[in-house]
């Protein structure tokens, strides 16, 4: 029996491990499928991490190293190149690696910190051929930053998520020509500063309300047809335009990687594709916690670390038998607020709720009401956008006696 097993040694897993350690848990094991700790941060060699958490601007590997050193210092155990194959509802983990073969571990508590993956091209049903030269931005990032290879020289990027923007700059610096970044929505999902320093700095056009409608080329990609889309996001045929290119990078969304959560019978949210959790980041499966991008996709790694601390601390309390659920208050959202994390409150205390809005809103009020329609919290925002996670803190006395909470956006 291992007290705490953490699935994933990226920023979430390491931060959760350290937090659990700080709460007195010593028997911790991190299982990491890659050949080093750090997760996706290892290939995110650009800077912009850690301002919130460490007060300095770090690159991905530097941010990871901070946590790697914390893990080392505490002698927290970890296994690399280890792939978890299955987790049962009663916390038996099956994993495999070269040295141990396929093995089972029983855990008192489990923290799910598997991160997310990119939505592939296939999911988009783009018409045309299937040549080489089409990659997700993250795959291209792995080739360029970790392996030292160029996936191509003439690039079109579909989707303006941050990885896509970062790769536009990265490919440009390595000598490629990025012809355009097409974004289906009328706004970018990426951070404004990345549009500035990754696109504008290099005069790369950002084509909003545009998509790729056709792939050309038999063996290697030869070009793409792009088109403007109407309000219902359907391509307008007369706006079609051919761009000759040998590479198409996709940055069209991230999906929490919850296959293992499913084997553990963890309830998942249709909206976040991550687990449904309470304020302690505990899932409906007792003793199984989730944090980081496997729970919901975050904008900043700093917030991942923070969330993982909650999960690590709660898992420690669970192991020590001090985590007691006292209430059961679901948090509901109105659609304009797309989702919240947590989705449940099970303990009466001050609770920070994170959420995302479904569209771009100006001058709105964020209202939290109870089941009787009474306002328990309200806050004004001049602007709320889907690309930026919002948070509010609801005080313990406001939760008391509530049966349900609703988060609404008042325009």
């Amino acid at each position: 029996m291992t007290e705490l097993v953490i699935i994933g040694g990226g920023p979430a897993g390491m931060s959760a491990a350290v937090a659990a350690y700080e709460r007195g848990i010593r028997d911790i094991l991190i299982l990491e499928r890659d050949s080093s700790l750090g997760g996706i941060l290892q290939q995110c060699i650009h800077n912009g991490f850690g301002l919130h958490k460490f007060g300095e601007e770090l690159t991905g590997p530097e941010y990871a190293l901070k946590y790697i050193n914390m893990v080392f210092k505490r002698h927290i155990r970890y296994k690399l190149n280890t792939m978890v194959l299955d987790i049962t509802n009663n916390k038996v983990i099956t994993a495999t690696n070269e040295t141990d073969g396929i093995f089972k571990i029983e855990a008192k508590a489990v923290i799910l910190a598997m991160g997310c993956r990119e939505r592939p091209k296939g999911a988009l049903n783009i018409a045309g051929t299937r040549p080489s030269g089409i990659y997700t931005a993250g795959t291209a990032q792995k080739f360029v930053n970790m392996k030292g290879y160029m996936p191509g020289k003439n690039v079109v990027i579909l989707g303006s998520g941050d990885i896509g923007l970062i790769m536009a700059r990265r490919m440009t610096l390595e000598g490629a020509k990025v012809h355009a970044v097409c974004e289906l929505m009328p706004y970018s999902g990426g951070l404004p500063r990345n549009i500035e320093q990754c696109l504008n700095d290099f005069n790369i056009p950002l084509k909003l309300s545009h998509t790729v409608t056709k792939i050309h080329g038999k063996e290697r990609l030869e070009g793409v047809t792009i088109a403007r889309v109407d309000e219902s996001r359907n391509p307008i045929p007369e706006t079609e335009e051919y761009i000759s290119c040998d590479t198409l990078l996709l940055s069209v969304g991230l999906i929490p990687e919850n296959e293992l959560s499913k084997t553990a019978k963890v309830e998942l949210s249709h909206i976040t594709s991550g687990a449904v959790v309470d304020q302690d980041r505990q899932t409906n499966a007792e003793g199984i916690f989730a944090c980081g991008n496997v729970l919901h996709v975050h904008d900043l790694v700093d917030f991942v670390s923070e969330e993982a601390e909650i999960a690590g601390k709660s898992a420690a309390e669970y192991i020590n038998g001090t985590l007691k659920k006292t209430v059961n208050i679901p948090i509901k959202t109105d659609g304009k607020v797309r989702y919240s994390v947590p989705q449940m409150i099970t303990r009466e205390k001050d609770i920070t709720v994170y959420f995302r809005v479904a569209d771009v809103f100006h001058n709105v009020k964020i209202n939290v009401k109870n089941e009787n329609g009474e306002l328990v919290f309200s806050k004004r925002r001049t602007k709320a956008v889907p690309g930026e996670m919002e948070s509010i803190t609801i005080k313990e006395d406001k939760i008391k006696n509530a049966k349900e909470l609703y988060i609404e956006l008042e325009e």
Partner: protein
Amino acid sequence: MKRNLTCIVCPMGCSIDVNIENGEVIDISGNSCPRGAEYAKNECISPVRTVTTTIRCSDGSVIPVKTDMPIPKDKVFECMKIINHTSIPLPVYPGDVIIKDVFGSNIVATGGTYNDNCGCKKQGRF
């Protein structure tokens, strides 16, 4: 002359308005912090950028590096050229200075070999 900038100092990405007269910044608004003002002023007079990239190692692999200070924006490609012309012997440790004084900044390793002092794994590299 008025300019509108998107601040790149932090993820907030404030929209900053700058008023410039005779080549001097006379008014900055829209920033949420002093660093934003500093950025806006620099951006109008002598814009700078941090360069993050990789460097080729003697065994053919690559290791991530960065300029430890921002360098003039118009020197970014020249800086890339200098880095790309360099191949470095291993091992490299995070924080090692790889090339000194490139447009006023040092090129330092942000990754490399690290030692696991708890003995779980002899040595890893990233």
